């Protein structure tokens, strides 16, 4: 188990959104304000870690044929827990994320990591993988939130940052902005990864 390598993979070289291109629906849909991005990122991080641990723990007793169905049930269970917790303690965030919290069930990042990592590796390594992949996802969400909120509305977390004379690019907070900002971020990532020759892109 190599913590540094897993951290680097989760956040940079094998980032779930920018390199593996998973979980794009939620990435584009909810990144209009920092509170939303943080709420979504932390929810996914918790669910991913918990489901990775459980799936890794049961990996030897689950018959191969029905493994996907089992994984989905495990994930759906944790998603329901987080959904209920958010509704109870952070109703404002739960309301603004709306249907995208239950939709974490079909977020490809979680099922993808279950299939690609947790179903093969030990419990501790899977837990770390969940934390680091979740962290990579959260960082991308925050980057998108900051770009879209700062340029699209001139605020950060609701506080006015740009001078009053700044002409906000309103289109960035609309769905269009989600596509454009994510496309640009992925392009930046491809550029950064292709520069040093040693950072060969892992085949997915």
């Amino acid at each position, binding site marked *: 188990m190599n913590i540094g390598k897993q951290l680097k993979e989760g956040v940079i070289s094998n980032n779930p959104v920018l390199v593996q*291109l*998973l979980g*794009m*629906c*939620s990435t*584009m*849909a909810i990144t209009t304000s920092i509170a939303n991005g943080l709420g979504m990122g932390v929810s996914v991080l918790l669910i991913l870690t918990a489901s990775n641990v459980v799936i890794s723990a049961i990996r030897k007793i689950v018959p191969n044929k029905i493994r996907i*169905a089992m994984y*989905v*049930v495990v994930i*759906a*269970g944790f*998603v*329901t827990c987080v*959904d*209920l917790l958010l509704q109870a303690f952070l109703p404002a965030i739960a309301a603004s994320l*709306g*249907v995208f919290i*239950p*939709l974490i*069930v*079909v*977020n*490809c990042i979680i*099922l993808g990591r279950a299939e690609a990592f947790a179903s093969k590796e030990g419990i501790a390594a899977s837990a770390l993988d969940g934390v680091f992949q979740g962290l990579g996802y959260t960082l991308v969400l925050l980057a998108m939130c900051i770009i879209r909120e700062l340029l699209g509305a001139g605020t950060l977390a609701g506080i006015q940052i740009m001078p009053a004379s700044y002409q906000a690019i309103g*289109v960035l907070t*609309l*769905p*269009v*902005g*989600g*596509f*454009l900002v*994510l*496309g*640009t971020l*992925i*392009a*930046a990532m*491809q*550029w950064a990864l*292709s520069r040093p020759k040693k950072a060969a892109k892992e085949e997915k």
Partner: protein
Amino acid sequence: MKEIFSIALGAILVNNFIFAQFLGICPFMGVSKKIDTAIGMGVAVTFVMGLASAFTWLANEYLLVPLNLAYMQTVAFILIIAALVQFVEMFLQKSLPALYTALGIYLPLITTNCAVLGVALLNVQNGYNFIESVVYGITGGLGFLLAIVLFASIRERLVFADPPKAFEGFPIALVTAGLMALAFMGFSGANVFG
């Protein structure tokens, strides 16, 4: 009738699942390199979304709500959808082998399409009745079909374009989708029946 038409128009154009609600982006990006496969995927999604709307509405109304189990919606819906996709696959294989070979590979993928689970959850959230739910499911699917076919026909031409190296492949496709979303925003004024 007015409500039905308004729901249909909204789901296909104004609140398109892809361009306005960000549901089903993964298959939209993944299987839009060729028009043929895009049509196959779009038809399969429309079919499953219609069926899933009907079954999840019935399950919610007659099982979950009377038993006070509404908090189990997410788990119940995803199981219903997974089972439904499996049955549709087996049924088509037995009775309509031609359609099965056409849709074959896309069907299993649909279980994890967030548009399908999304439409089931939105039906409950919007308080639609049975007919409205089914219409919303089918027209939402048609909206997806429209979006993916348009997008695939642009992408077929995009192959010959010469974008900056960093934008090659996925990023330029996303930017294209963004411009299409911009075009679809033009429909947001078309709220004919309010």
